[in-house]
């Protein structure tokens, strides 16, 4: 049996699954001041009268990282960056202990200027004086050649225990995001470590010894050991859990929209043939742009409890939530009140809902019935409009080769899957407005916990080969080999596969769940003075986000 646990902002959902069905599901309020207690409560409820030895797998998704970033409850971090020519690295400053130093590597990974040891020692002294414990080291083009980061690391390791390096977080090029990602990992490390060590110890005391997996923003999991190197990857795992929970109900070979309609917000995601779409570079929300692999989700301020107002003589929904619906004792009319008044939803105090509708109706000089109808329609059509915009945005994503441009895959949604509290009541109207078949995911209120429970372990590797320089390397994996000029595509693919499998198993994957996918392949001739000097290969391969085998929960 497996356990899935998703601790959200307002409540925590948890499920106990056998290989055939959901054995138990619970929902408890989240104690934001003590997430550990919330987790413990969930386990206590789930494991009542269950032998802990029967549990084979535990997957946990929490808002721990997200909360600490939002509440600025993070450790101070010392950052050393080596940038070389380009945009002034001062623009990418994170925290108060930020040290740009000499040294430069170019796009092919060649050293242009060396690291100056004295500068690093001087920065180390200052950081030590400031009481810094956690360090990030980031070099421009370090995914092409990590030697400068490694040199800096070797100087700093005499002064500090915990040092994070840029080339470890991703093979993707984006220096500012690499800085932000390393900073995040270092800043949340101690909190992450303390929290999960406490969880593991407590579960052990209960006799639960199955390995704990932690959900990441890409809808995959990692084991505790891996999470200690990349704790930042746990940020925004909540929306990912919901999307993963919709997968068992997504048909094959179709483009699907997944909408998680909550009280405050609606999260949108896209699935192609049961595989959720990933962000091309990493989490890109607002100020927090990073290289953290994440599902492509969009969150908008519209939900069942959105505030309904009149703006310039027209009904407006959201983006704020001012409290619960009036039918549940709130003070502002909401779409939920409209649905209760219309009899679509049977809950709360209908007379209070009617009061809300009357408020809106009097301002517009229409009947409460008309007001409720207009609010309901407006809410559903706004949600449909958001999905349209999301699809449009994905389809307008630029591509870099003629082939991709012409064969460019266009998302064409054929079904909408709904999750969340208000979902069952809105499905019919959303289907009518969008003209797209719309269904509600069964047990949708705990689908997020089911998604977490069933998520497979994922990871990605990047391999570079340069036959002119005679090297194949995967800096993230500490891998470098010499190659000959006869190196071919097949060789690159073989190495990439080997490295990816190794990494996945180390992160806690089970072999039968390794669904590998080539996400990028480029091969270029290096030509100088009209003659072929060698070839460059660039390979990116991933374990596709998806569900583990052996658990059929299809409705």
């Amino acid at each position: 049996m497996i356990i899935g646990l998703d601790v959200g902002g307002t409540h925590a959902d948890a499920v106990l699954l056998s290989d055939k069905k959901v054995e138990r599901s619970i929902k408890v309020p989240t104690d934001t001041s003590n997430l550990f207690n919330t987790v413990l409560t969930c386990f206590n409820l789930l494991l009542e009268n269950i032998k802990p030895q029967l549990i084979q797998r535990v997957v946990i998704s929490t808002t721990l990282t997200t909360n600490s970033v939002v509440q600025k409850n993070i450790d101070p971090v010392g950052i050393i960056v080596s940038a070389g020519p380009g945009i002034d690295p001062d623009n990418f400053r994170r925290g108060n202990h930020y040290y740009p130093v000499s040294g430069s590597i170019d796009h092919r990974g060649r050293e242009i200027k060396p690291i100056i040891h004295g500068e690093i020692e001087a920065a180390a002294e200052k950081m030590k004086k400031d009481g810094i414990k956690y360090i990030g080291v980031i070099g421009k083009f370090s995914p092409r050649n990590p030697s400068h980061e490694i040199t800096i690391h070797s100087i700093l390791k005499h002064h500090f225990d915990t040092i994070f390096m840029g080339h470890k977080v991703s093979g993707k090029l984006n220096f500012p995001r690499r800085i932000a990602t390393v900073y995040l990992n270092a800043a949340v490390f101690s909190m992450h470590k303390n929290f999960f060590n406490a969880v593991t110890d407590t579960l052990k005391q209960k006799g639960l010894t199955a390995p704990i997996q932690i959900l990441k923003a890409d809808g995959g999991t990692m084991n505790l050991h891996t999470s200690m190197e990349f704790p930042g990857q746990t940020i925004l795992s909540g929306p990912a859990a919901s999307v993963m929970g919709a997968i068992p109900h997504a048909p094959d070979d179709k483009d699907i929209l997944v909408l998680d309609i909550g009280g405050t917000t609606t999260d949108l995601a896209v699935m192609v043939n049961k595989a959720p779409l990933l962000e091309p570079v990493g989490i890109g929300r607002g100020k927090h742009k990073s290289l953290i692999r994440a599902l492509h989700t969009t969150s908008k301020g519209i939900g069942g409890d959105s505030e309904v107002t009149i703006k310039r003589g027209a009904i407006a929904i959201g983006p704020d939530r001012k409290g619960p619906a009036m039918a549940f004792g709130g003070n502002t009319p909401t779409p939920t009140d409209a649905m209760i008044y219309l009899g679509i939803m049977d809950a709360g105090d209908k007379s209070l809902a009617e009061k809300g509708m009357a408020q809106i109706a009097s301002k517009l000089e229409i009947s409460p019935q008309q007001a409720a109808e207009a609010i309901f329609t407006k809410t559903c059509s706004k949600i449909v409009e958001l999905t349209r915009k999301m699809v449009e945005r994905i389809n307008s994503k630029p591509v870099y080769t003629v082939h991709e441009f012409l064969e460019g895959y266009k998302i064409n949604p054929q079904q909408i899957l709904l999750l969340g509290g208000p979902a069952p009541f809105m499905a019919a109207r959303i289907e009518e407005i969008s003209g797209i078949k719309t269904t509600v995911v069964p047990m949708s209120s705990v689908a997020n916990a089911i998604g977490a429970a069933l998520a497979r372990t994922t990871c990605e590797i990047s391999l570079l080969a340069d036959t002119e320089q005679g090297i194949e390397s995967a800096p993230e994996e500490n891998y470098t080999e010499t190659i000959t000029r006869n190196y071919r595509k097949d060789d690159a693919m073989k190495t990439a596969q080997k490295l990816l499998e190794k990494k996945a198993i180390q992160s806690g994957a089970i072999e039968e769940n390794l669904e590998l996918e080539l996400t990028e392949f480029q091969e270029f001739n290096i030509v100088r003075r009209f003659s072929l000097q060698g070839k460059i290969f660039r390979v990116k391969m991933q374990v596709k986000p998806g569900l583990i085998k052996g658990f059929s929960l299809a409705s």
Partner: protein
Amino acid sequence: MLKSDKKTGLVFFPAFDWAIDPTHPEREERLLYTQDQVMEEGIFDINGITEYKPELINADDIRRTHFCVPDEASVTTESHLISAGGAAAIGRAVMEKEIDNGFALVRPPGHHAMRIVHGGRGFCYINIEAVMVELLRQQYGIKRVVIVDTDCHHGDGTNDIYWHDPDTLFISIHQDGRTLYPGSGFTGELGGPNAKGSNLNIPLPPGTGTEGYLYVIKNSVLPAIEEFKPDIIVNSAGQDNHYTDPLTNMNFSAQGYAELTTLLKPDIAVLEGGYSIEGALPYVNLGIILALAGMDYSNVVEPDYHPERLKQASNVTDHIKRTSDIINNYWKKRHEMREKAGANGTIQERHREIFYDTDNIFERQKERIRICRECAGALEIDSQAMPGSRIMAVHIPLNACHACKETAYDMFEQAKTTKKYSKIFLQDRPKDEYICF
């Protein structure tokens, strides 16, 4: 988060699967390292910089600019349609005021492609700037356009297309034609009788450095643009003036390019040549992008940049000053030169020979233009390609007067009466029509 002063749009289309042939300078690898640099700098995360997807232009778009022989499909590939479409996407975004300015980093290039296209010249098949400009004229009604071509090779294709158009000020700054392909672009090449002085060619001696480029921009280019009062400024931003370029002999730098961009303030920049793909392009393109966006580019320098080694010789400086004076003199006298070019309503002939180096085609042209004080003039071109066919192309300019329209239709009807031509084309810009007989 980093924010730009100007709203800048970028199209990035490196055509990673298109090459003239595997070891040709115009090959897949060309923009690879530029892409690396742009990605690593996080350019697309800057608040104010937007990446646009290239459009795909069609035959109708090409037919406003070119006469393709035998047809558009035979002389273009999808890459060309996307490359021109990349420029068009930026042009449209500027017109729609979504962005203040933009840069199309696309390949294949286009500035050697002339009005008639029998094949490839200087790695170019269709003129991506001209196709874009004519598309914008058609859809947004703009009239006056400046195109400044800063590629190291004379922009002879663009020069040919706008040779007779007084509404387009075409300025090409390039290495002296006596020392570099295509061997043209001398100061005396000023345009046809209806447009004398609206084509300015500024040849610079080998060894010209940043100082020399900026001198002609400040002393000749900017004053002419100011007087011309354009609706838009286009920069054919070739990058082969760079001190590391393998095909040329100049000493321009990334810092220089960025400063040139700051001075010129183009609405639309379009990448042209530039074959120092590791030593120059990543830095030059980054410099141009930051300059367009109004951001600090002072730290954008090549790994082997030593300004003292790139200092311009004093005889080169003197030479450039003299050239600049000649250009300014021509510009001042442009109206006078047009008056002297011939009597209104008469027909003037021009004979030319054109070599298509990329496809090894030799073309002979006999061009006849109606001298007109009111419009760009009716134009016919009798073109014989070897190997290839003989065609007649008749062009009615966008702003054509009644008499020139009549003349052009007469030219077209007259051509039809002979059996000399395998094809006869009529490009009617006012009607946005293209007839192939």
